[in-house]
């Protein structure tokens, strides 16, 4: 029996939980694709865009706002995408924020203070991120520690290491403010900066792996039911190990991009991104793929939340309004999803009663 069969079984099992089998077969595919249940956040997003267009007509509905939302949320998108693959395999990586910080201060140190050049500095920073991924994989898979606790612990160790090395002070240097280093994040192409391109390429790559390859199906199978997947000879441990390496590498990329964007290596760069990354990944899981963690749903979630932040700032609202907005949007999107899970059961009961 092939491992793909196991993945397909797990996938079918998961669809059974989160979709409505009878109604879905009768509904045209395009209507399902555009249904509120499938892309509810997109409709919420459109509603919000409409609201801000009416509220701040002079400044919101402009190309500059479009560019601003994309440019200012690219790093959040990258760090959110970094947790999608581990979450698909039901692995939490809570160390991504610290890995992002570590790669940021590493690239800043080597680019600004050693004279090794930008490309080697980027390579070293990615190497450090890779090492963190291997460490996480060893602790989670090798030692069998629960990923939530394990990556919390490794994150704490990384944080301590960052403090020890940087003395909690930002790493600066004129080399970080000018090309070629600044070009990594500040190169502008038709109003959009390179991090937007990195975000789209990364999302496309993750989409391809998860949706178009056997590895992706095995990752989902590992996440849905690891025991069943293992019985079907899916190398679940290897996939979980690799998922942690992927998240660390993507967090490392996010750290390098962020450092290039602000022009310094901040010892606290990643801290504010952890909750935002998980909020976007979970909100994204409610979109497009019916409960599965997926790349484009995550991108939609990041841009939806980013649109709110930018719109509220353009409307000069109080400082707390962004938190209110984020909280309500998350509740709405997740409430809609929980409705999707329950409705099929009710429909099934009704169908049984009718029969």
């Amino acid at each position, binding site marked *: 029996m092939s491992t793909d069969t196991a993945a397909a079984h797990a996938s079918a099992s998961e669809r059974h939980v989160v979709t409505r089998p009878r109604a879905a077969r009768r509904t045209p595919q395009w209507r399902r694709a555009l249904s509120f249940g499938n892309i509810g956040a997109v409709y919420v997003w459109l509603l919000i865009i409409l609201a801000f267009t009416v509220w701040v007509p002079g400044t919101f509905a402009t190309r500059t706002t479009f560019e601003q939302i994309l440019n200012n949320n690219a790093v959040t998108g990258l760090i959110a995408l970094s947790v999608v693959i581990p979450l698909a395999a039901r692995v939490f990586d809570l160390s991504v924020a610290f890995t992002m910080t570590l790669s940021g201060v590493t690239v800043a140190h080597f680019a600004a203070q050693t004279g090794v050049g930008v490309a080697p500095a980027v390579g070293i920073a990615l190497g450090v991120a890779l090492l963190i991924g291997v460490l996480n994989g060893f602790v989670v898979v090798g030692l069998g520690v629960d990923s939530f606790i394990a990556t919390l612990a490794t994150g704490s160790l990384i944080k301590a290491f960052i403090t020890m090395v940087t003395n909690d002070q930002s790493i600066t240097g004129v080399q970080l403010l000018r090309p070629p280093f600044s070009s990594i994040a500040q190169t502008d192409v038709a109003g959009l900066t390179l991090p937007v391109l990195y975000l789209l390429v990364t999302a496309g790559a993750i989409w391809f792996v998860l949706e178009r390859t056997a590895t992706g199906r095995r990752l989902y199978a590992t996440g849905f039911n690891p025991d069943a997947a293992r019985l079907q000879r899916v190398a679940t441990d290897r996939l979980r190990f690799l998922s942690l390496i992927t998240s660390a590498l993507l967090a490392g990329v996010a750290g390098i991009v962020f450092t290039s964007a602000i022009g*310094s290596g901040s010892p606290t760069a990643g801290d504010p991104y952890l909750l935002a990354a998980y909020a976007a990944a979970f909100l994204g899981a409610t979109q497009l793929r019916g409960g599965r963690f997926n790349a484009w749903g995550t991108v939609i979630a990041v841009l939806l939340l980013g649109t709110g932040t930018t719109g509220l700032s353009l409307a000069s609202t109080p400082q707390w309004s962004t938190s209110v907005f984020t909280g309500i949007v998350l509740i709405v999107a997740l409430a809609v999803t929980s409705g999707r899970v329950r409705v099929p059961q009710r429909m099934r009961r009704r169908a049984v009663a009718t029969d």
Partner: protein
Amino acid sequence: MTSTPTRWSRAVRAAIVTALLAVSALALAACGGNSASSGSSSSTGSAGSAGVSAADKVAAQWAQRPTRIPVTQPIGKPIPSGKRIDFINCGVTSCTILYKNLVAAAKSVGWTVRQINTAGTPESVQAAWKQAVNDRPDAVIASGFPRAVFAQQLKQLQALKIPVLESSTDDVEGNGIDLILNGPKDLRPSGQILASWIAKDSGGKANTLYVDLPSFGILKPVRQFFQQYYAQWCKGCKSQTVDIPVTAIGKDVPDRVVSYLRAHPDINYVAYSLGVLNVGVPAALRQAGLANKVKTIVTVGDAENYQYIASGQSQAAMAFSNVETPWVWVDALARTFTGQSIAVDRKAQLPFMLITKNNLISTSSEFPIVASYQQQWKTLWGKG
């Protein structure tokens, strides 16, 4: 055929709920304004130019690098050696800088410093102060802690006659705290430096966005002094304020500032109550096409902002030195241990400086403002 109406009714219900929640969120957000505007657009003629002239002089004074430390009275008695100081580290960069320089200052008079770390939570702060009480040091020094968090331990330290010194806290001396440096009363120069530079640089034609961090109580007097002097020296100028939550630092401050500037295109100056608020903003301004439309100044310059000034991405900063503060603490303790008044230390005005590209001392966040500060303090202490 019942499934279609069921789906539609569910979709409609969900849409209505979503719309209501979204609209309520936006309405809630719209309830309060984030900005406060003040000032008059009408020029006040000679009064206005007189204000700008006054601002010009003040800015020029603050741009001069001080050459003298803020205390000139020698100790006059031998300073006892072997004293043990406990320093409670607040956990942020500035506290670590204070600790490093406290160690250097204490070492010059033969004292040792023990660092007690905190994790930022009230519990960990209380635990640190309890540890200091149990340690029975010769003095306790800390920075940035509100009295309410360690009130009980402060009473115990007072009963044990152990001096307690602080800095950068929104409090007043007395009831157990012997000395507060950079307290609210000492922050007048911050407001003067920001207001004088903007008034001078704009020629009295500024429309300033003041970006503040209200959760830091110690920054409140900076805003008050800025508004006071801005109104005095820049009579034809306007100002607006935007408050930033502490959770936005390092994440979406650039987005918030850029959005505000786009919504208010007549703003031509931005003043930050803390340097860290400006980190990442220059790149965001450039991407939004606003780089040459506004000039910026920050309070409490740091390495990032000095780099921005050096590269022309930001224009000015108020430099404030954590390097020199610990030397005033040691001076106060030396006077206490030799039975003298610490009135000179209470009156000491720590050095501030207006930094622009023309007089930038260093792009490090740790440079001393008075170059020969160590030698001058050691001379006062009879160790020179």
